[in-house]
């Protein structure tokens, strides 16, 4: 049964001021209702004035998504009542959006895939409700208008996605693209919200609202597919409805049918002139976007396709990589893409928490064989723990010194730490040694592990191998 998914993505544009007034958008660390003025509070008599920068940002997105920008687009009022809505309507774009008919290429389930973009339009964010006294049955709610008027773009795709994983990949690519364009900061809380339309082939369409994370999209869709398949298996019909995603429980719940019947009574916003910005588009010079950068990473640094894709899939990561690529870009690629990312995820840390010079320092210790790969990872873990805890860390060299993790030079003389450790290991594990001599070569791996343990990872595996084989063959 094939799955059909389309997405509506709301992203906050990372402008300095709001969409229709001069209030700062940098409200996240401040108290409620501190970034407000008559306009974004919707005080009687206030009027919107369009933020030029927000339009430029939205056009950058339109261009990067290969959209057509019509001669004229029109702001419209979407009328509904809600306590977080400052004016009793939201200024958005309706039947004449800023941009239409674009696409974004992604890595799909079956290779490269083109996802069509229906439209891109601009709108204002409403305020925010803070529920007090329990989430399920709050006793009362407070309203914070700091968020009211933050510029949003809504990006709507055609129903071109075929699995939750593809949806996730699309979002990741879109996020990377927006960040490359310098118009979006994915690290800001609440900067992205997704509604997903999903149907199983031949069934009604269900809209899932209120998904606020990248992972959430995949989770919500996966849940919804299972739910719908189960319903069909039991002979029930999938009803056309709106459902909410409850992130904490990973489930979708049916929204009251009332919300579906909402009539928004759209009409053109009389306080804003139609927007005629088609001619701005050609003046926009797009920066290098993820696909181009991926190509360059392969050509310039010799990265593998997989590494290049991972490294360029996030702007900060790509920038970080270019800072640490140094003399051995392939080594750096392996360390960033395969090791560092995993360690960051494990700690729920962002790449921006890692000073590139610290990581470069670590890489050069590994590259110059001052420490072994294995101990390199240990040092990295120690440094990341320090960064997570206090935001700073010691230098990699200091860390290596403090923990005594310098690599031990290889021994040929018979009286070096590696050879001593190897002798000990053979004495302590005579049966393994015997196994080896009897032809079970895999016994060597066990013995290598024992030596590594004794040298606390400071011996180089190749040396240990050589010494052990020599001793075994001598004995």
């Amino acid at each position, binding site marked *: 049964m094939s799955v059909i998914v389309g997405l509506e993505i709301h992203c906050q544009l990372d402008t300095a001021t709001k969409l229709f007034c001069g209030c700062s958008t940098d409200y996240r660390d401040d108290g409620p209702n501190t970034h407000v003025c008559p306009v974004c*509070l919707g005080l*009687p*008599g206030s009027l919107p004035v369009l933020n030029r920068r927000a339009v430029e940002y939205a056009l950058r997105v339109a261009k990067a998504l290969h959209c057509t920008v019509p001669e004229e687009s029109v702001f419209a009022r979407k*009328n509904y009542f809600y*306590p977080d809505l400052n004016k009793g309507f939201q200024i958005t774009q309706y039947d004449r959006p800023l941009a239409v008919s674009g696409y974004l290429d992604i890595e799909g389930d079956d290779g490269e895939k083109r996802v069509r973009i229906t439209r891109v339009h601009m709108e204002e964010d409403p305020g925010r409700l803070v529920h007090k006294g329990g989430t399920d049955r709050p006793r009362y*709610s407070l309203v914070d208008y700091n968020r009211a008027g933050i510029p949003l773009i809504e990006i709507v795709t055609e129903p071109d996605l075929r699995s939750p994983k593809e949806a996730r990949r699309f979002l990741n690519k879109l996020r990377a693209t927006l960040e490359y364009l310098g118009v979006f900061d994915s690290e800001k809380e609440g900067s992205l919200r997704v509604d997903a339309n999903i149907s199983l082939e031949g069934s009604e369409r269900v809209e899932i609202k209120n998904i606020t994370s990248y992972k959430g999209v995949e989770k919500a869709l996966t849940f919804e597919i299972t739910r719908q398949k189960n319903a069909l298996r039991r002979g029930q019909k999938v009803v056309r409805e709106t459902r909410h995603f409850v992130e904490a429980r990973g489930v979708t719940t049916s929204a009251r049918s009332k919300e579906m019947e909402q009539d928004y009574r759209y009409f053109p916003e009389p*306080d804003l002139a139609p927007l005629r910005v088609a001619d701005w588009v050609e003046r926009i010079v797009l920066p290098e976007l993820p696909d181009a950068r991926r190509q360059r990473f392969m050509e310039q640094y010799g990265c593998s396709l997989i590494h290049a894709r991972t490294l360029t899939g996030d702007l900060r990561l790509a920038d970080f990589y270019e800072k640490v690529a140094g003399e051995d870009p392939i080594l750096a690629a392996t360390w960033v893409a395969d090791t560092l990312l995993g360690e960051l995820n494990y700690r729920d840390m962002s790449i921006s928490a890692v000073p590139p010079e610290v990581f470069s320092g670590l890489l050069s210790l590994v590259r110059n064989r001052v420490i072994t790969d294995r101990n390199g990872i240990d040092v990295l873990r120690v440094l990341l723990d320090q960064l997570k805890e206090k935001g700073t860390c010691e230098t990699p060299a200091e860390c290596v010194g403090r923990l005594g993790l310098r690599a031990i030079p290889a021994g040929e003389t018979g009286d070096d730490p590696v050879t001593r450790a190897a002798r000990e290991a053979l004495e302590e594990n005579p049966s393994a040694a015997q196994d080896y001599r009897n032809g079970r070569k895999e016994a060597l791996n066990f013995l290598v592990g024992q030596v590594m343990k004794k040298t606390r990872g400071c011996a180089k595996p190749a040396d240990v191998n050589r010494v052990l084989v020599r001793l075994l063959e001598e004995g």
Partner: protein
Amino acid sequence: MSGKTLSFHPDDRYNAFLRTIPEVSYGGGRLSGIPVAVKDNISTRGIETTCGSRILSGYVPPYDATVVTLLRKEGAAIVGKTNMDEFGMGSTTENSAFGPTRNPRDPSRVPGGSSGGSAAAVAAGLVPLALGTDTGGSIRCPAAFCGIVGLKPTYGRVSRYGLVAYANSLEQIGPMAANVSDVNLLMSVIAGYDPRDSTSLDAPYSHVPNMDIRGTRIGVPEEFFGEGVDPRVASVVWDALTLLERKGAEIITCRMPSMSHALAAYYVTCMSEASSNLARYDGVRYGPPSDVRKPWHEAFQERRREGFGLEVRRRIMIGTFALSSGYYGKYYAKAQAARRNVREDFRRLFSEVDVIAGPTMPTVAFRFGEKSDPLSMYLSDILTVPANLAGVPAISVPCGKVEGLPVGLQVMGRWMEDERVVDVAYAYEQGVQP
């Protein structure tokens, strides 16, 4: 504001003011120390602004409308806020939640509306200058009924920032005064580009009225003297036109077929916009608060049911209906098409004439309660709404009396030719004076 103060203790027997400021400080400038009344739908920092509605009682704006800032900069003494039909919805000032204003020319009659308080304050001699607002005639109607001068400027010429919206695409703030020169002066203070209003035009107004109208072609549409226009009013207005002809103007009768749909287009448009504009009065941010113990939608309903008057609720309901899906095309979209026809008519006429003139109102001021059904009330706006639909300037200047009650001559001009309508009104005003 620098140190001078004006004491203002008017004998407000006609209920022109909703509130006055007894001691007003003022500075220097072209209007230094001149008392100016401001209609209560124009935001005044620190002074309660209610729009004649209970739903805004107690609301004190934290900011000045741009026109108020401009007044203060020229030293005007803002002495009070004037009564009005609730949110501007009415033509008599009877729809104020705080009681009607009476017409100083005949206290048994309405002053017109919705800027009835401003017109009465000027007509009663309480202030020489007042600001009104005009959505479909709300400056010109009370100016005509009270026997004063009122100008609705070209849409965009005066900033709307701080004007509490009723129908954004139609309304303008404008000057009201006892004579054309004072209207001209006040207009020169309030007009000009305002970056806070996206519909604002960069067209400052700096004009010396000129009474020489020789060669001016005045178009007189038949529709302005049609059914519903009191023949006595028509006769007085024709006398005025004849006077202008004697002063060298050319009178050209013409037709304005779009008039047949103008009133419907006007009411659908203003009610639709109003239904959206007035959605914000939910008791969350200002005005009397909603009952926080109730679910929000119940609290909103209760607040709005109690806070809005009958006419406002009627217009919100109709406007909501006109915008709803399935009816939008039939009403709102059609109204916009009719509006384009009106504009087209004006464009066509203004290629043949320089101004268009006729009566401001079809009748003289009504008695209280005379227009008790809404439809006959709406019909009285028929002559004023075309200028709002087209966004062109229009002035009302007193041009005689019928049974002792003032009649207004309306002069409409090309887009951006506010100066010309002022000149024609000035020529008339100067012409009738001995």
